[in-house]
């Protein structure tokens, strides 16, 4: 009986904190993305026209909360979309790319080219996304 109660409390805590964190993170991402002034792309066409280049990276490890993890394990029985996990990876990707581009912008780069993304699962409901590319400068 005590275990069931603990489980329900953890679910509730996870739900409340997880939802708040997701909302806060999305707002933060939007705010920072609006401040970006440099181009970013996945190809490297025309990169030889720049004067300097350097490798830039950005990474983040984000985890799901207890409620969403439990829900995902349950829905896994039935197959189909796992919207909460899709949102988790979407946030992680945007965060990793943002960190990389912010670093490039601080260096004085005008573009980040050849952007690659790499995703790794670290534990259940917890993923690392790494973004790397080449920042190019005019001088």
């Amino acid at each position: 009986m005590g275990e069931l109660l603990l489980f329900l409390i953890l679910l509730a805590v996870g739900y409340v904190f997880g939802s708040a964190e997701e909302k806060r993170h999305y707002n933060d991402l939007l705010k920072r993305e609006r401040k970006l002034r440099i181009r970013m792309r996945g190809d490297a066409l025309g990169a030889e026209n720049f004067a300097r280049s350097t490798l830039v990276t950005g990474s983040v490890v984000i985890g799901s909360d207890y409620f969403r993890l439990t829900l995902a394990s349950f829905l896994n029985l039935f197959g189909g979309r796992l919207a909460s996990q899709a949102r988790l990876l979407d946030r992680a990707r945007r965060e990793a790319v943002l960190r990389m581009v912010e670093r490039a912008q601080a260096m004085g780069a005008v573009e980040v080219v050849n952007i690659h993304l790499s995703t790794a699962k670290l534990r259940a409901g917890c993923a690392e996304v790494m973004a790397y590319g080449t920042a190019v400068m005019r001088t």
Partner: protein
Amino acid sequence: MILLNNIDHVPGKEIVEHFGLVAASTVRCKHVGRDLAASLKNLLGGELRGYTELLEEARQEALGRLVSMATQRGANAIINIRFSTSSVAPGAAEIYVYGTAVKVR
């Protein structure tokens, strides 16, 4: 200072010599304290900063090894760098990085 990028040439410079593929990897694991904190954070959701830092440090270490391998061969730049992360055990991750060592002028 060695030049690093992930495209197939060095903007503003000319490649004069190729030294082939260089690769380096590190396996890092967190200490129990940080792993416990991560498990707690996993209840609430959000970024697991301890893990992010761990992987950043591992990546820097792997890049450092890559650079010393390249400079040993006489290169002064590494192009076409690629990264790969894999989980090898709970709380431990392997970072693998590889690229082409070249000399530029």
